């Protein structure tokens, strides 16, 4: 491709991204309003529930934690739209991680969560992703590489913050 054609392609595509970012700002006025504290509290509740489901010996093998993240990194994106993600590493000495994930799959199914993905192609390291249709919280549980532990990710949808954040 000639330099001129590349230049045109790049400017067109990037400027178009700006145009669509502007469109998405309008769309996002329908977001539910939450504070970061409230969203974080929700993620923490899901962590507690998941640890309870896994069993009394379950514990976090690393500190883990939550982060509030802007919903878009487009230039001039609204600074009051965010989601919260929590990342944790869980170990349960009384059960193999793959068995734990199989139990979580059943428990979450019983709660009416939607199963987005359940990969068992590597039988020792299954990966499960579910979403609670009531609040659109997404949870992923998977066995990590090289250790009998589970990586647990809990992510919220985008919310509208009552105050600017970023």
């Amino acid at each position, binding site marked *: 491709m000639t330099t001129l054609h590349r230049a045109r392609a790049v*400017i067109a*595509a990037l400027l178009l991204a*700006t145009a669509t970012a502007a469109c998405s700002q309008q769309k996002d006025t329908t977001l539910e309003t939450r504070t970061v504290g409230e969203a974080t509290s929700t993620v923490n509740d899901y962590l507690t529930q998941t640890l309870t489901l896994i069993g009394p010996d379950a514990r976090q093998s690393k500190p883990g934690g939550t982060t509030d*993240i802007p919903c878009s990194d487009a230039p001039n994106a609204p600074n009051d739209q965010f989601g919260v993600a929590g990342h944790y590493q869980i170990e349960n000495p009384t059960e193999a991680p793959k068995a734990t994930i199989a139990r979580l799959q059943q428990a979450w199914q019983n709660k009416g969560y939607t199963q987005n993905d359940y990969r068992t192609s590597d039988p020792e390291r299954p990966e499960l992703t579910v979403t609670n249709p009531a609040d659109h919280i997404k949870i992923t549980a998977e066995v990590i590489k090289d250790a009998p532990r589970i990586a647990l990710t809990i992510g919220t949808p985008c919310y509208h913050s009552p105050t600017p*954040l*970023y």
Partner: protein
Amino acid sequence: MPELGFAELLASDPGPFSTAARAWKQLAEDLDNAAEDVIRSTRDLAEVWPEGDAAEAAEQRTATVRNEVCNAYLPARRIGEALQAHADAMYDLCGQAGDLYDEAMRSGFVIDWRTGVISVSAAAAGYRSPDSLERQVNEVAASMTELVGRARALDARTTNALVVNLPDATVGFGALARVPVSREEILAQQGKDPKAVNDWWNDLDPQQQEAALQQYPDLVGWLNGVPAEDRDAANRLRLQRDGDNLQHQADDLNRQLADLNAHPPVNHNSPEFYAWNAQRTALQDRLDDVHTEQQHLAKTKEALDKLGTNGYLLGLDPTGDGKAIISVGNPDTAKYTSVMVPGLGTTLDDAPGAINRQLNLYRSVDSQASGGQTATMWWLGYDAPEFDASVALSERSEQGGAALDPFVDGLRVTHDTGTQDRLVVIGHSYGSTVVAEADLHGNGLAADDVIVAGSPGLHTDNAANLHIDPHHLWVGAAPDDPVAYPGYYGDTVAVASAPLLGPLGWVLDEAYKHDHGPEPQDPAFGANQFHVNTHGHSDYWNANSGSIDNQAKIIVGDYSHVKLDHKAPTP
């Protein structure tokens, strides 16, 4: 002491040298830490206790202590390094001597350890010609002589290093300070190979390093090859000083404006009024620039405050759109490191949100890693293009690539184990072109893997033209990302966005009529495409993103569990 011979070489044990080396290196590290404590705790003594004989005596005494501690550091480190080099070389020589001995025995030779004479057993002599035997004996003897010669030379070098660096019996390591580093000396390091810069930095004693940080933080803070903790200290100093300077400038400009506004010319059509107005406009423009820089510093501080002691400021320049490199975690001790290059329209004002994304990636990587520390970086070490013609040109990506490449080399050099287990470079949007430029030129990026998301192209027609192995190039592209797929919206959006883009509408129209070149996610380009479950161009790092999960797996090297749309073709 008898001169070292083959028997001594064969029987030698390098283990104690390794043990001693570790002890000296630990001593050097303790001295370095002690020197920093002494320097920082006595730095302001003259300021808080400025006058009097006692103050003068205290200042002299603390200067002497500072110098003595600092002067002890380098010799201790050099002795540790010399002993370690000796141990490593001796392990090698002993191994070679053992192999030679075994080979000689297998050949039926007998070595007299006392005299070094080699004889041949009767059994071995029985089936070989005298010429052949003589040649073999001579070869063994020459190898023995060569090994012993190398061992003696090593011994002499190590002895010399010890003698030179041991303290004098009367004055110890001395109380005179070494000459401080000049600005010119630091400027001369810019653009050098980070390994050479690292060697230069390590040859400075703690007091020289501290003085360089204090006097020239703007230079030291950007120097690739300087350890992360020192860069961080320099840049935080600059953050504070630039903030103070800018506040003084703002106060001064506000005073000048107030004075000017207090005495406006009465006649608005007079030359005096035009001159007055021009002066006022110039002052206001300067004040606006100062406010912009203050805003950049405030946003940088806001980002750093979120990270606490786990934040590292590895570059800072508040001028213009602002530049900064901020790391979550110390890259010099991390097992898993990523460097993320942002794209179009990014300025230092974006730091707080960007750092939250890096913190999220950090936590995702940490949750996937079985052990070891993590560092994830936001690298705004270039002037990202604005919403103007700069985005269409390669100039910014070339400049960015030229800055990114040595930065990554520097990360490799300053790592405390010699190199990271995993180092991954990520480019978003226009940032992917910066990554591509860095990898296309010279010896390429010193990265284990490269990830790009929402890329407009990688300045080449095929992944094979990049230095990175195509199997370690990972492309993410949301199906409705108009940058990754410029044809996604077709003429509809070109027409619809024309009012927003104004005179640039023709560019859109023209662009869509031409071949935009290979999209890196196109299977024909030859890279891996990882699965993305987000929408549009700017959501790859949001809270619910499977893209984050995939990036974390690539960073820890868990390739088989990366969710792929397609793999790079097998050659």
